[in-house]
């Protein structure tokens, strides 16, 4: 049960933890997520792409800061 799973960024761009500046974060560390739940956004080429959990789990930690630049395949969230 203790094996960690990663949610990777499918795109290069800017990572956001919230849908818009005045809204709360999608999820917090310790939250339970189901497959398909949105955990953040990647902005690139003026498009916003939703990053979703691919399987059920509990958010262990965010590996990148809000509004930081991420690469393709970079780990964004680890699930436990």
């Amino acid at each position, binding site marked *: 049960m203790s094996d960690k799973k990663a949610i990777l960024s*499918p*795109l*290069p761009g800017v990572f956001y933890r919230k849908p818009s500046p005045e809204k709360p974060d999608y999820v917090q560390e310790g939250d339970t997520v189901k497959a398909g739940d949105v955990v953040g956004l990647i902005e*690139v*080429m003026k498009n916003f*792409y939703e990053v979703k959990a691919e399987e059920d789990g509990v958010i262990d930690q965010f590996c990148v800061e809000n509004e930081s630049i991420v690469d*393709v395949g970079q780990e964004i969230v680890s699930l436990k």
Partner: protein
Amino acid sequence: MIKVIKPGLQTTVQDKGRIGLYEIGMPPSGAMDKYSFAAANLLVGNHPNAAVLEITYLGPELLFEKGMRISLTGANMPPKINGEPVPMWETLEVKPGDILSFDFVKSGARVYLAVEGGIDVPVIMNSRSTYTLIGIGGYNGRALAAGDVLHTADMKEKDVPVGSRIDEAYIPVFGKAHEIRVVVGLCSYRLTEESKQTFLQTEWTVTPEANRIGYRHRGERLQFVEREQPFGAGSNPSNVTDLGYPIGSIQVPDGVEPIVLLHDAVTGGGYATIATVISSDLNRMGQIKTNEKVRFAAVSLAEALQARRETEEKLMRIAASL
């Protein structure tokens, strides 16, 4: 018929482009990486101007309702048919009901998917290319969306056997740091000598604002020669009396971030252009992603023409091999 299950991030129909309309302010659009575009059409025996799908950063999921030959070139984005990996740069065959999907992109930015006969969308001003800014061309003037249905055209010219493959020597490799050759000129007289050097010596980082319109780069600040503002030019030192922008031309609004204008760019405006990316390196430019590094290398016109001939030569050899 091809049904779009998932569209990817930005998947558009493109051909060689809408050429010859600069005087009305219409940019050419068309495939960003014309080398990979041409190779994709060659692999399915299409006319060189047959329309393909240009897939950017993130692959779509497509359902083929009819059997046909297809090919995938450009960025290394591992493709799968019904979940099984298939090769790129090779003539493939899909059967009715097959689903094409992709893994995350490994290198490069844009994949070209050619289908036997080409993608059929209405021809607008001699081209099927999508120009999303004003919503013309391609599939209803926009990027593909889930549920769209694509038809194939009749631009097939020859039968290329399934399994035909492009020689490894002609398959481009895309890293994360790129050298892009430019011819310095146009309004480069506006830059100080020192800034001309800085422009060529800086390792620039591609920002998230990098798309079919242009690529913006972060690095050093560039300075313009001091002057009295010419009548009609704007007040910023980077302004000029509005002029035409070549495809691949580079401008630096306020000296802050160099922008390479690409195929969907504005056709003119009031910023000094300082150099132009040579035609064969525009192909590579189209395979650069956000966060990657770019260095601009100055070459002469003769060197630009030589590079152009080499690119054409490679495509001729590919054509001869199939």
